[in-house]
């Protein structure tokens, strides 16, 4: 496997008038091409901060994030409500291409094909509020894929959904990601979600977070997250990670 990103000794301090907050501290790991990595941690432990640094949205206070390709295109997916209500679904999905001024006939077709493939073609001219939570998630992911990113970052992509929708949507999203073959880093506080989707789980400690542990997840089959939850090794990993997060100092 080719190494795509190396993350070395990054830390981040936020300076505010109330004082200095050390969000993450000395984090190092590698990201290989095609890998699906989940980062888990309790809420407020610095997961979003870490992801923003990896995606080059903010600079670390220390350490480096090195990509092994020039000018990597980065896809970032946030919570559901990041769809723009003032645009229809198609315009939402084309947003990234418009911003990068690279919208042409070819990639417009590509995007429309994606919408068709994931059963959204009838909603192209609808407003986001007319879609279900799960559909909105698929739209957000397609919007991220539209710019043909080299790497995908997902920040708690399912946090706005209720539990049962969450399971279905994670299946859909997983399928879309696997079809695209993209390297993916997903942040979550849900242990089950991490184990059922990722090849590798990185566990963060409480603030300031360091890498507490990391696990390669080996399950019998890897086809769909809800089925993976029934794998006999699922609980084994769950307990390990639960303990890591529990005695968290």
């Amino acid at each position, binding site marked *: 496997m080719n190494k795509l990103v190396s993350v070395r000794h990054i830390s981040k301090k936020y300076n505010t008038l109330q004082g200095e907050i050390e969000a993450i501290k000395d984090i190092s790991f590698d990201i290989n091409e095609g890998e699906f990595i989940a980062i888990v941690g309790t809420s407020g432990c610095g997961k979003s901060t870490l992801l*923003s640094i990896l995606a080059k949205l903010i600079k670390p206070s220390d350490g480096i994030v090195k990509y092994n390709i020039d000018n990597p295109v980065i896809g970032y997916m946030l919570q559901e409500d*990041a769809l*723009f209500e003032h645009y229809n679904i198609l315009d939402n999905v084309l947003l990234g291409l418009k*911003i990068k001024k690279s919208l042409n006939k070819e990639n417009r077709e590509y995007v429309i094909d994606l919408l068709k493939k994931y059963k959204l073609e009838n909603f192209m001219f609808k407003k986001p509020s007319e879609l279900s939570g799960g559909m909105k998630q698929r739209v957000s992911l397609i919007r991220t894929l539209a710019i043909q990113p080299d790497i995908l970052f997902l920040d708690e992509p399912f946090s706005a959904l209720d539990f049962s929708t969450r399971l279905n949507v994670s299946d859909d999203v997983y399928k879309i990601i696997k079809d695209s073959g993209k390297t993916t880093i997903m942040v979550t506080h849900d242990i089950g979600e991490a184990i059922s989707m990722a090849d590798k789980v990185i566990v963060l400690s409480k603030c300031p977070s360091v890498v507490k542990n990391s696990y390669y997840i080996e399950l019998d089959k890897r086809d769909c997250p809800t089925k993976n939850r029934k794998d006999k090794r699922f609980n084994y990993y769950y307990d390990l990670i639960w303990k890591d997060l529990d005695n968290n100092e």
Partner: protein
Amino acid sequence: MSNEQKSFIKKYKIKKAVIFMWQVFILLFFLILWEVLSKHNIINPFIFSSPSKVVKCIINLYKDNNLFIHIWVTIYETLIAFVIGLVISFLVSIILYLYNTVYKVLDLFLTCLNSLPKVALGPMIIIIAGANTKSIIVMAVLINLIVSIVVITDGFYNTDKIKIKLMNSFGASKYQIVRYLVIPSSYKTIISSFKLSISMSLIGVVSGEFLVSKAGLGYLIIYGTQVFNLDLVISGILLLVIISYILYRVVEYIEKLLLK
């Protein structure tokens, strides 16, 4: 339609009719009372006039071909001030959004200006802009402008942080963020500032007309006071009530159309 739904609709309609009847009743009661009290000298008819005198006065204005001129002048000045105020406040708000430091610096002065009764600036405006329609419009613009700037800029700054982060993840420039996100997502705020703005413009225009004018409803009221023709004063006030209500309703209707 189910029976419950039918009876619900029926109740709703009855309630609406009752409300309307009350409104008509109160209005008629007030007018008749006014007429009777004035006719029997229980209230001073010279000061408080009476509905019949007001109607006569308005008919006279109409016969002299003055009625619509006065109404039109006021509406026209109000609309001009409204549009000018809107354009300027929109542009200023964009600048205040793009340059946060400028916003923070001006914030103090905006707050001061916002709480200052702008009518106080009237005499100064007349000296600078001259005793003419220009002064009236400047005054009305000043009155609606500050409020609109405060409301719209606030709307811009309330843009969802997560959406801004999304724009950044696409590598959007500041201008792209404003164009694709900040302005369109503040559309509702901008549109709903219209109602406030039209009322403010009318206040500005009438205060302006009090100070300098040769026509308009504000002029009618002031002129009537000067010549002790209180029928005219009260006619002017009543016409203003009607005009402001109509303007408000028209703007409300336009808002509805634009927000569809």
